[in-house]
């Protein structure tokens, strides 16, 4: 009898313990403070560098953005808005721009922010001695010629050739303004920055390579103060582990959940799935000049391939809704976007008859795809291969490689050396102007001078792009890009698939994590709900 009683007591205690454990983490913290505390964010990659000038990935850029600010930035729709500059004006010839700077601001190390600091930071971006600097469009033969500090609060940029979206280009993290004094404070060197010091709402705290980056609040921030005293970005490369971390309370925000878990996460009331906007288009690039595949040089064959693929089904079944269909060769958030009318709606019968009319029935094509570079990339390529086979094509592939091999073997390859017909690629303009999207249709950007891997060349399109890129009248630029987009759409150098969205997840306790159209998910102003 006694042992039985003991057993029951023990069981009851065990039940209690399990119950306590089970509910402990799940309880809603309703009386949480509005300020203070730490926000934990799980990201997928270990940022290569925090040097603003050397940025190439959005995740790392987003972290740098919290510490170092740019002159201008974008809102959630992608429109430009002031940040460290209050206004800006191009000269009538478009060759110089004057920016008026915000006054009475200090960097987080106490150095005053002024025109000299802007000149210093941009000069550093353009300097060939800055390690791995990425000036892109701001540098080179067509970019900035020189920067002048007119007075404390005015900076003048002189360009080598007019660039209409110049202000937008300055919204990129590479053009962030850093404290000139900070580059001589170890571990920073003038050629390389490990701990950026800017004017941002957060300051660099600490970093354990491969593990986490901690940022602490900048109490002297000039703008709205953030809610959290610190934010920790944790590096967890495996998507399923990130998901477990958020579900178990180890993180408040996670980037890129496993795509096939999106529906289940959406039905979990303790979480919020946000399909953030993105300006990334995903497409199958068609090699339009391959002499061994003369059929692919015919626009009607390329159009037929577009009709052969069911984009809507791919979006719902393979992308789990994390994409929107394209009705132009660019995403809707770009300046210069206009819907071009006829969308290539799935029509297998039409595809087959067009292929037959062009003598392309049963033609063979080679398809390649990266794996793990874009959301569901290889899965989408497999679906595309299936649709093309349904249309009667013999599809060899999709073969896949790791990203550096892909880039070196299939993407950054001059036309004469290209060995493939179809390749999946994503393209995300770093700032929201059609000029950046048209790098994909501008024949001057054929590798090695860019990544225009369709090798598409249409002199009319080239002329319109050049005119619009340099134009000073926004309405005229819009019109020119629109005309060029229509031609590109009809010439179909791509199988236009979709505009990807950028999924991230927060717990229901967190609000105000905002996705921007450049695939950044801004946690800076996050607050406990």
């Amino acid at each position: 009898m006694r042992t039985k009683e003991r057993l029951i007591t023990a069981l009851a205690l065990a039940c209690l313990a399990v119950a306590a454990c089970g509910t402990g983490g799940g309880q809603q913290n309703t009386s949480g403070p509005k300020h203070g505390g730490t926000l934990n964010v799980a990201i997928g990659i270990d940022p290569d560098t925090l040097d603003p000038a050397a940025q190439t990935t959005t995740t790392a850029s987003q972290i740098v953005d919290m510490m170092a600010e740019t002159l201008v930035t974008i809102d959630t729709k992608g429109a430009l808005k002031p940040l460290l500059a209050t206004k800006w004006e191009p000269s009538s010839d478009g060759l110089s721009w004057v920016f008026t700077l915000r006054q009475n601001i200090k960097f987080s190390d106490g150095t005053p922010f002024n025109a000299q600091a802007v000149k210093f930071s941009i000069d550093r971006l353009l300097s060939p001695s800055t390690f791995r600097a990425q000036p892109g469009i701001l540098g080179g033969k067509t970019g900035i010629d020189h920067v002048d500090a007119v007075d404390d609060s005015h900076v003048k940029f002189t360009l080598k050739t007019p660039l209409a979206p110049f202000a937008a280009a300055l919204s990129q993290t590479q053009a962030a303004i850093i404290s000139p004094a900070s580059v001589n404070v170890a571990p920073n060197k003038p050629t390389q920055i490990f701990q950026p010091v800017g004017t941002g709402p957060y300051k660099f705290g600490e970093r354990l390579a491969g593990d986490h980056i901690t940022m602490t609040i900048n109490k002297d921030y000039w703008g709205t103060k953030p809610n959290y005293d610190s934010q920790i970005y944790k590096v967890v490369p495996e998507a399923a582990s990130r998901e477990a971390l958020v579900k178990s309370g180890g993180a408040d925000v996670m980037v890129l959940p496993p795509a096939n878990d999106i529906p289940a996460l959406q039905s979990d009331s303790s979480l919020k799935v946000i399909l953030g906007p993105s300006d990334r288009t995903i497409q199958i690039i068609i090699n339009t000049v391959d002499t061994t595949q003369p059929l692919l040089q015919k626009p009607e064959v390329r159009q037929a391939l577009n009709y052969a693929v069911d984009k809507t089904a791919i979006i719902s079944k393979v992308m789990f809704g994390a994409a929107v269909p394209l009705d132009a060769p660019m995403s809707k958030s770009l300046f210069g976007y206009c819907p071009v009318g006829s969308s290539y709606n799935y029509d297998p019968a039409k595809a087959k008859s067009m292929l037959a009319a062009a003598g392309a029935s049963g033609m063979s094509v080679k398809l390649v795809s990266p794996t793990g570079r874009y959301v569901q990339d290889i899965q989408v390529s497999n679906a595309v291969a299936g649709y093309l086979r349904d249309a009667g094509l013999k599809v060899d592939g999709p073969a896949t490689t790791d990203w550096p091999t892909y880039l070196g073997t299939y993407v950054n390859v001059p036309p004469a050396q290209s060995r493939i017909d179809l390749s999946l690629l994503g393209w995300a303009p770093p700032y929201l102007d059609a000029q950046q999207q048209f790098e994909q249709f501008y024949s001057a950007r054929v590798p090695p001078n860019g990544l225009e891997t369709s090798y598409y060349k249409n002199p009319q399109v080239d002329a319109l792009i050049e005119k619009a890129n340099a134009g000073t009248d926004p309405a005229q630029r819009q019109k020119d890009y629109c005309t060029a987009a229509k031609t590109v759409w009809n010439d179909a150098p791509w199988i236009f698939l979709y505009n990807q969205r950028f999924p991230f997840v927060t717990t229901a306790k967190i609000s105000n994590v905002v996705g921007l159209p450049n695939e950044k998910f801004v946690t800076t102003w996050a607050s406990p709900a």
Partner: protein
Amino acid sequence: MITYVVRRLLVAIPTLVGVATVVFSLLRLLPGDPAVVIAGPQATAADVNRIRHQLGLTQPIWQQYLGFMGRLAHGDLGISIRTGASVLEEIFARAPFTAVLAFTSLLIAITIGVTAGVIASTRRNTGTDLGISGGAVFGASMPTYWLGLMLIIVFAVHLRVLPAAGSDRGPISLVLPAITLALFSTGLIARQTRSAMLEVLGQDFVRTARAKGAARTAVLIRHALRNALLPIVTVIGLQFGTLLGGAVLTESIFGWPGVGRLLVDSIGSRDYPVVQGVVLLLSVSFIAINLITDLMYAYIDPRIRYS
């Protein structure tokens, strides 16, 4: 003995030169240009060339090779292409994490594996033996990836007793990755221990020990296990290599900041100097472990003499 160790260490030098040469060549044979990878999609050809120049990739291959070997002789592994920090710094920041993970796993594997193997051998062909042997096969054949995620789901998501990923909660962060990594080796060590013990248990000296009335555990540990140790130690030595390799996957699943993940990230960005450095470090560990294993033989079996 000391002459033997010195000789082994001298032999290690040409081995490491060979390893360095092979890694250097293999990396250059891989398609993919680090400058293009780093420069990103929006870079101009001028950007790529400037970066290539900064990274010293414009020199002819033989010059790059001589430069690499020359610096290596001075203990300089160069600068990471990906992060711009010194390779030694990168590796030393991460190596302790892998070392802690691998040694903890090895400790778990030895403790559980040897114990289970001894128990199974004494209860040959019973339910216990079947259970242990079955468990050993299960452990040795479970994919790390699947097992790791299952453990995370059970212990982090449902029971909430252990962290799902990361290294920020002290020793408690180590529990799941160490168990995941240990399972394969535990299975293998248990199987090896069982068969080695079975062989020894049937021999005359064990029967003699029993006959003279030695205690059961004394017979098992002092007489039988001691004599069965040679093949077990060999397997354990080999397992250390497997653990370092397995750490690559385990570290990715659990977001553990060790050299395994550093290696993956570095290969993914064609960070030649870091890959070279990590592979050399792993080779040095292998050579060291092999040497220690060999020296252990002499300790375990006094008949073995090195000269």
